[in-house]
């Protein structure tokens, strides 16, 4: 029986390992109507299959209407707080001050985009069997570091790479950093301005070298790598099980790390951690700057922590890392827009933010015709279901004025961690 019990444990563990933490969809607290076979499972099954070539005029109208409500917001400034004037739309010339290239990560490859025009300058594929999980850029906007993971269903390794951009944005080949692969899944990456220090966050695979996730053991850690030697110089383990951060950031001189994670089951906090702090549990090694942030990023000097807070209206503000006091409210997002990871321009002037507008996600129509219409049965009536494609747009925020600029490129799909770098 003992052998059988062990076999059961191992089999369950391997099955559980097929669930990748970052592949789990977001919680949808407003599912609206729930008709037959409209579950997340059904939507996934449909993915990649042939959609019925029929249109839904009503659905299209609904999508257009919803987009009309949300998208214009992305193109205009919004009052940072009461009494503050609206920012005028920014002309394209404002884009010139931004880093020249933006690197987008869709997992399978990295896409180098000219920030001012949205033109694709080059692409870089992930090594076979690997997927990019996080990217980060150094000062100068030419050298980037990336973390990739091997398929955790058959292996569990985090690998680190570097690549550079030519003057016209062509990426070099990927170069493996002189760092041993870690038996974990990467969740975030940050670097110092000169690229000499690389900070990472990983979460362990359930069947990783350390055994099953949890069981009272920390399930991941934040680490610091000296890229000159390839040695991991610090490791701060997450205090709570199954906790990890997806918004790691680093001051330009590499002396401070910023991130957010859970303090307990209900409270998320933004923390700063001195890179000189000896290895140990993260909660004891770091200091809380802000409570309940959705996303954080350190300023290049490390003196400010930018954070997005709020559930309905989301607010981007700057907080003093020393005191935790709010220094400035930079912008306010309406409920319909879901912001993603916050990336600070290595020069310190701008923040880059992916935003997914999430208007009506599913619409039903009795008109079964046209493209992208999926026929579903609702109360024994055939209906056309159309799912509004999630679209992520990228905006920059002037950190001095709060001025918002919509960048001339976008991605299909929702925001995700590690999806963009400057």
């Amino acid at each position, binding site marked *: 029986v003992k052998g059988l019990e062990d*076999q*059961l444990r191992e089999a369950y563990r391997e099955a559980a390992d097929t669930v990748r933490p970052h592949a789990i969809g977001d919680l949808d607290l407003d599912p609206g109507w729930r008709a037959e076979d409209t579950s997340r*499972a059904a939507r996934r099954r449909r993915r990649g299959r042939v959609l019925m070539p029929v249109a839904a005029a009503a659905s299209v109208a609904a999508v257009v209407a919803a987009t009309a409500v949300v998208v214009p917001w992305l193109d205009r400034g919004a009052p940072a707080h009461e009494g503050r004037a609206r920012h005028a739309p920014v002309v394209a010339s404002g884009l010139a001050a931004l880093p020249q290239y933006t690197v987008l990560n869709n997992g399978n490859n990295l896409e180098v985009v000219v920030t001012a025009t949205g033109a694709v300058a080059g692409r870089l594929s992930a090594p076979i069997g690997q997927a990019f999980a996080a990217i980060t850029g150094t000062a100068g906007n030419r050298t980037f570091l990336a973390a990739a993971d091997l398929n955790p269903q058959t292996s569990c390794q985090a690998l680190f790479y570097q690549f550079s951009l030519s003057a016209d944005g062509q990426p070099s080949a990927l170069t493996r950093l002189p760092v041993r692969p870690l038996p974990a899944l990467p969740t975030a990456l940050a670097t110092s301005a000169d690229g000499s220090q690389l900070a990472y966050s990983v979460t362990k695979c359930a069947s990783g070298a350390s055994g099953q996730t949890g069981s009272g053991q920390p399930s991941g850690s934040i680490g610091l790598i000296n890229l000159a030697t390839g040695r991991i110089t610090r490791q701060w383990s997450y205090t709570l*099980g199954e906790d990890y951060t997806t918004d790691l950031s680093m001051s330009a001189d590499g002396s401070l790390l910023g991130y957010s994670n859970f303090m307990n089951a209900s409270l998320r906090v933004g923390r700063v951690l001195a890179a000189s702090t000896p290895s140990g549990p993260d909660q004891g090694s770091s200091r809380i700057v802000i*409570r309940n942030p959705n996303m954080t990023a350190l300023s290049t000097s490390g003196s400010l922590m930018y954070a997005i807070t709020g559930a309905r209206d989301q607010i981007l503000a700057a907080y003093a890392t020393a005191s935790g006091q709010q220094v400035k409210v930079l912008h306010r997002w309406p409920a319909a827009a879901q912001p993603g990871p916050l990336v600070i321009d290595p020069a310190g002037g701008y923040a880059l933010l992916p935003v997914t507008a999430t208007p009506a996600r599913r619409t039903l129509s009795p008109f079964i015709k046209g493209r992208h219409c999926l026929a579903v049965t609702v109360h024994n009536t055939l209906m056309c279901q159309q799912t509004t494609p999630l679209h992520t747009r990228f905006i920059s925020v002037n950190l001095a004025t709060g001025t918002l600029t919509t960048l001339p490129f976008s991605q299909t799909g929702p925001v995700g961690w590690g999806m963009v770098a400057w």
Partner: protein
Amino acid sequence: VLAHVAGLGTVRTDSDVRSTIGRERHLIDVIPSLPQVPAGPQELSRADAVGDLYRQHATGLVRLALVLVGDQPSAEDVVQEAFLGLYRNWSGVDNYGRVASYLRVAVVNGSRGVLRARRRAWLRPVRHDPPVWSAEAAAMAAEERRAVLAAVARLPQRQREVLALRYYAELSDAEIASVLGVSRGTVASTASRALGVLGSHFKEEP
């Protein structure tokens, strides 16, 4: 308090949440029992609180649901519904420790519902992805382990649940009894029968 959450009439809550949590840390990590939902300026909105809980526990709960229902999309649906139930009934929550317990029970009940719906295929086909232990899914590399879970999948529902809670969630028999709403003796005998069937299947004496 949460016994009637989300219309799950059979939901049962643990009387001793602390001991339960202690054994299920790789599913639902340490959740300190707070005396009540934080109040005052720092009070979390319902959506904030449930969203935070989801971000922290979704992985563990999806994994539990997956070993019960077989495929990740269905498992995610189960967990989504569990959190929706929690969201709708948030006002009834007076202890975060109970939330963890509720979510686990809701996931087991939700998984049961998914499997029940599949059994009613003659009435209305329910399409779902192949289980991760199937060769078709090609998700698990080790053939032996696939065979073990495929054999488990042929067991009666309660036996499957007991095995998953005992050997994946690492719950004690008392905790499993609380989750499933049966006696400890029933858990022990159910597990014994399941191991016996599996043992004979794999030519091992129980």
